[in-house]
């Protein structure tokens, strides 16, 4: 078992028993569900919208080379720079070099999961550059020295009281648990940062090929400030974010907003496509796009798993996931949590180290049901499991277990004998009151359950005796 798996099991067990955590998350997800349902009802045909989004993303991902080059060309035509980063290190290095060359001392960031993925913040801070997260949720977790709990709602695990205490300690000028006043305090602090930062870093919800622009949505307007106030704007995006046409946003933007938060459209929808042009009065002097591969091309080459790249990072699958709600976002120990994280992480960072995430699912399929781009998420979990087994990367005990299982079920007499033996064993363990103890072979089950009583006879025995007439 990998270290990551050990840590996951430990943290998951701890959070599973944390009833206060369960309650906070339940409340958060309940209000999301209500908003999301209202949001979907505003569509004439939500299913048709999902289907359209799936088609758009399919077209984009299956013609990624063409659309990325088109995007790059148009950005360059407007005087922007495009850097292709094969991995985290290259992406970090490009941005760090740029910041150093331009004498950047402060960076304001709007939310970007890719920046988490490549560990950009710590790399810049090592150079003495101050990095300020400007999304309120991200700002909160940054003040707590935590990673985002959720890709859309990074501070979902915290309640108002905890945030009030945090702000009192870290910001000083606020002592209240009134949400409006807390937001105002964060706003006061962040305004100063927006106007003193030399560099703004943003993610991109979409890279629009035919417009050569990035499409960015935020609810707090912080994205717009990051991309227009500082001298330099750096966009950090995975290569899978490209879409063919500006017109596609007509479907993708409202669907993303609805799936993400239940909103008809996110409050601030921004398109940015390059540095300030000669006839423009504002905007950054420099515009850089860093396109991050970091394992995505390998996923692209895998025809069976390719559709995982359709993901628009709305977080709907995470909200729908009963495992996420139980173990919480931090237990995963990965940038992407919940179903999409459990599908993606083993592919991007290695099946060997992260296969446990693909197994940590009851395969309930709630994720697949809600995915706005119709990624068959739980089937991909099954594929990851299959590939882990085929790579002979599973514990010996499990492999022997399934060898025995197969031997037993390939013959009904062997099956009957094995079943009889198991039931006998269960009865003996129960008679000796050993249920759930270390001496109980069924301990993994019985330590969490009142033991089931094994019946004396199987169905087939009863059927044989009375031909089912009992």
């Amino acid at each position, binding site marked *: 078992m990998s270290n990551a798996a050990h840590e996951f099991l430990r943290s998951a067990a701890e959070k599973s028993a944390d009833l206060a955590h369960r309650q906070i998350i339940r409340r958060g997800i309940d209000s999301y569900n209500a908003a999301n349902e209202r949001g979907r009802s505003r569509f004439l045909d939500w299913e048709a919208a999902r289907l359209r989004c799936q088609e758009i993303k399919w077209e984009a991902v299956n013609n990624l080379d063409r659309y990325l080059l088109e995007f790059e060309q148009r950005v360059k035509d407007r005087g922007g720079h495009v850097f292709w980063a094969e991995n985290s290190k290259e992406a970090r290095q490009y941005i760090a070099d740029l910041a150093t060359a331009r004498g950047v001392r402060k960076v304001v960031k709007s939310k970007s999961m890719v920046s988490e993925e490549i560990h950009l913040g710590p790399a810049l801070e090592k150079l003495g550059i101050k990095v300020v997260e400007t999304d309120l949720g991200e700002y909160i977790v940054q003040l707590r020295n935590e990673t985002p709990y959720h890709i859309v709602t990074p501070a979902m695990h915290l309640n108002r009281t905890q945030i009030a205490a945090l702000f009192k300690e870290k910001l000083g000028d606020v002592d209240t648990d009134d949400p409006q006043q807390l937001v105002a305090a964060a706003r006061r602090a962040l305004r100063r940062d927006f106007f003193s930062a030399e560099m703004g870093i943003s993610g991109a919800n979409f890279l629009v090929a035919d417009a050569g622009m990035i499409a960015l949505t935020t609810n707090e307007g912080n994205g717009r400030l990051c991309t227009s106030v500082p001298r330099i704007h750096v966009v950090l995006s995975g290569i899978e974010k490209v879409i063919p046409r500006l017109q596609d946003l007509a479907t993708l933007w409202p669907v993303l907003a609805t799936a993400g938060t239940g909103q008809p459209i996110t409050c601030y929808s921004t398109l940015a496509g390059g540095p300030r042009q000669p006839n423009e009065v504002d905007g950054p002097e420099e515009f850089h796009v860093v396109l991050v591969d970091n394992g995505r091309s390998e996923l692209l080459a895998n025809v069976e798993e390719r559709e995982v790249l359709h993901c628009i990072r709305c977080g709907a699958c995470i909200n729908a996931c009963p495992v996420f709600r139980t173990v919480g976002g931090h237990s995963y120990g990965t940038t992407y949590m919940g179903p999409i994280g459990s599908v993606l992480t083993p592919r991007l960072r290695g099946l060997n180290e992260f296969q446990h995430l693909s197994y940590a699912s*009851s395969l*309930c*399929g*709630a994720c697949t049901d809600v995915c706005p781009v119709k990624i068959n998420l739980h089937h991909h979990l099954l594929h990851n499991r299959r590939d882990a087994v085929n790579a002979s990367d*599973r514990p010996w005990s499990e492999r022997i277990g399934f060898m025995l299982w197969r031997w037993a079920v390939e013959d009904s007499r062997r099956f009957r004998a094995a079943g009889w033996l198991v039931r006998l064993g269960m009865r003996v363990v129960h008679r000796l009151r050993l249920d759930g103890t270390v001496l109980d072979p069924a301990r993994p*089950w019985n330590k969490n*359950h009142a033991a089931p*009583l*094994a019946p004396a006879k199987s169905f087939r025995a009863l059927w044989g005796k009375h031909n*089912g007439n009992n």
Partner: protein
Amino acid sequence: MAKVALFIPCFVDQLTPEVGLDMVRVLRRLEFELEFPQEQTCCGQPAFNTGYWNDARPVAERFLQIFRSAEQVVCPSGSCTTMVRNFYPELLAGTPWHEEAIKVGKRVFEFSEFLVKVANVKDVGASFPHRVAVHDSCHALRELHLKPESRELLRHVRGLELVEMPYSEDCCGFGGTFATKFGAISAAMGDAKAGYAESCGAEYVTATDPSCLLHIDGILRRRKSTVRTIHLAGILAQTASAAERGARPAARESAR
């Protein structure tokens, strides 16, 4: 009436045979001619779900061989029905059994689905004077798209009061080997489910999947809850006359 082959999942056969017997009672009452192909064992889902597709494949082929000649197959588990109908085609893609898998899949039905959609029966003449809540088992709900069927059947049971439990569509946390590999997570999910069942005032939680019920039952009894579990077939099998005679104890009371 048409002939029906019984597909009894391996763990029903060995651990909860009463679920199979109850299904038999209901189908007999509706005058179906039943057969139980004795060669059947397991559909292969445990291996398939754990990633052992090479081990699951011959077991799936064996299943198809046994059931290929059956006109209709009925199973008291949405999950095992899903395995055959939805997952066999993927598991057996590119093998000579692929076509057969699709064909057989169309003739395999989950029990409530069979009653309501195939046999067109809503009232099976059952009597069960209790408050009952339905847990929507994941595979039946999301893979087979079954939800109203079990409720429709329950609404026609004499004396039964149907109550809705909150979050009835949330997974109970069973998930096959997930329940033992990730016991803490699985138990916590079951615990939440048990809490919802208790909160709605139901005496019984029912479902179309005995595996969910095995899990929920183990959690409820561990909590010393008064709520009990019973498979849909267990409710539908009970008639007023049987209850008067005290012929059978309700549900799995024998196991308590």
